[in-house]
């Protein structure tokens, strides 16, 4: 028992939490941005797959890592544009379009990957981001190795949380995004074009999702594998609700989810054979539902979420 608790005091656990959380933070922020503007983006799982492949492939073809992330973002933005085109001006079902995008983006990703990459005995590799110990901070006992020896995209993810929170709460653009998610008619009545704002938010959000996918192939690992996103996108959709559509809480949610995951990987050695390993794997999902029950009353759904806005129609 104490052994199970001791795990929590290991700095390496917390370092793992940040690593596992990073793609979730990108994905959750992206989904959050879309939803704050009123568009549910179930394309996330496919967009992350696309980002993972494109980010990796660009680097494999000679780009540097940051350009790789940029290319991933661009690919995500294009997929997002497709989702936006279908759901915003055309006002099509966000569920169907999203699931369709997921199917399209992932199958297209695999198809293209198969066409352009030679198969060797194991998938080709790139040199991924290396952990960057922040001078000074990383020397702090416990906290240093736990928090300040990550790869740069992790720091970027956390910075983006702050940026998104700031943009949403404190800038005219953020206000416009929130308004089109709450009441697009009101936005239009004040001279804001809801269609454009929604498209913009979905495109930007999808770019973030793709970067989350690319983190997996350019930092967490160094190759691309089909189906490697493994439901992380769906988890992000859940985290947005868990976070009550607030960026700060999205960070907390992603960290919590990652904590369960990192913890269960360690707990497996402690209580190993006594418990089926599937129970450990269930923990993050079960805890998410439990957390939702606790948070539900306080959640404030964007009022126009999933409601298409077509001009001149009532």
């Amino acid at each position, binding site marked *: 028992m104490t052994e199970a608790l001791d795990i929590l005091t290991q700095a390496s656990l917390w370092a793992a939490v940040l*690593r596992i959380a990073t793609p979730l933070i990108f994905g959750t922020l992206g989904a959050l941005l879309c939803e704050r503007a009123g568009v549910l983006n179930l394309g996330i799982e496919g967009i992350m797959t696309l980002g993972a492949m494109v980010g990796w492939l660009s680097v494999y073809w000679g780009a540097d890592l940051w350009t790789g992330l940029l290319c991933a973002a661009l690919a995500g933005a294009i997929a997002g544009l497709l989702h936006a085109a279908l759901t915003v001006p055309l006002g099509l079902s966000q569920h169907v379009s999203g699931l369709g995008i997921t199917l399209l983006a992932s199958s297209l990703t695999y198809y293209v990957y198969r066409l352009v990459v030679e198969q060797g005995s*194991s998938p080709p590799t790139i040199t991924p981001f290396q952990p960057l110990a922040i001078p000074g901070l990383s020397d702090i006992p416990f906290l240093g190795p736990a928090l300040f020896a990550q790869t740069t995209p992790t720091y970027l993810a956390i910075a983006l949380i702050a940026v998104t929170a700031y943009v949403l709460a404190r800038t005219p653009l953020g206000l416009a995004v929130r308004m089109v998610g709450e009441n697009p008619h009101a936005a239009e009545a004040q001279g804001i074009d809801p269609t454009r704002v929604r498209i913009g938010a979905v495109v930007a959000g999808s770019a973030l999702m793709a970067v989350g996918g690319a983190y997996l192939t350019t930092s967490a690992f160094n*190759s691309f*594998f*089909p189906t490697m996103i493994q439901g992380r996108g769906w988890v992000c959709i859940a985290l947005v609700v868990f976070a009550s559509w607030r960026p700060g809480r999205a960070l907390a949610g992603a960290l919590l989810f990652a904590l369960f995951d990192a913890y269960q990987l360690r707990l497996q050695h402690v209580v190993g054979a006594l418990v089926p390993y599937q129970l450990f794997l269930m923990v993050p999902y079960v805890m998410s539902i439990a957390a939702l029950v606790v948070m539900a009353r306080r959640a404030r759904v964007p009022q126009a979420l999933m409601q298409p806005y077509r001009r001149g129609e009532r």
Partner: protein
Amino acid sequence: ADPVKVAGIHGDPVENAWNSRIHEALLSAANDGLIEYTFSEGVAGTDYARAMREYADQGAQLVWGQSYAVETEAREVAADYPETAFLMGSSGGPSGDNFGVFGTRNHEAAYLAGMLAAGLSKTGTFGSVGGYPIPEVNLLINAFRLGVKEVKPDAKFLNGFIGTWFDPPKAKEAAFAQIDAGADILFGERIGTADAAKERSVLAIGSLIDYMPRYPGTVFANAMWYFRPTVDAIVADVIAGKPVGRDYTEYSFMKYGGNDVLFDTAAVSAEAVAAMEAKRAAIKDGSFTVTIDETEPA
């Protein structure tokens, strides 16, 4: 003779380590002019029987596949196409004249790799990361452990299953968790394990494929699996017009060259190599058998 028409039906993308071994063996056989090879990958369970029928209809002489999830249906298909030979990775037995099966056996190599690893650990703790606790994974990890114990009876073992075949970042995290818990040699049934070892400067052993070029200095040994002997055996049967309804698992054993340990001589001591080589010879001449233990490792 004309090359034998072979169709492969992979249940997963061919990146999967296990599939990649077969894929490569078939590709090399095709290169040698022995066979003509086409394949489908990522074929879902529901679609599997149809894929088998379609290939049979298209004139494949030999359909290779994995029938683990569709044992009954696969046999029904084979019964409907008596002219076509089927070779399936299966947990059941052969059936009829044309439905042959094979199992994956690189446990002997894993045992030998374990012997090599034993002396290299400072902490005496050995980790392993697996996808699912299926027998073919379990027996591998258990054989590795037996090999370690042969040399180091007081060794401690850790294991983690990640519940997926396709999540290298997760395998990597599982490996980190074991390194944190004191493991300094990792047996990686899943790709990703060695990446963690590399980052933490501990050693790793690969399974099925050769990971040494990918992780120089980290992976010092591999429990290789070679599928070519199996391919050669069944293709020979097909050409000879012999019934293929038998178990081809034996061609995965070391004495047929179906598996072997591949290691970096610079990384291990000469004594360890000598002890290992002795065992290897014993396995090959049949005087020693590596126990097959399919129970889930703790």
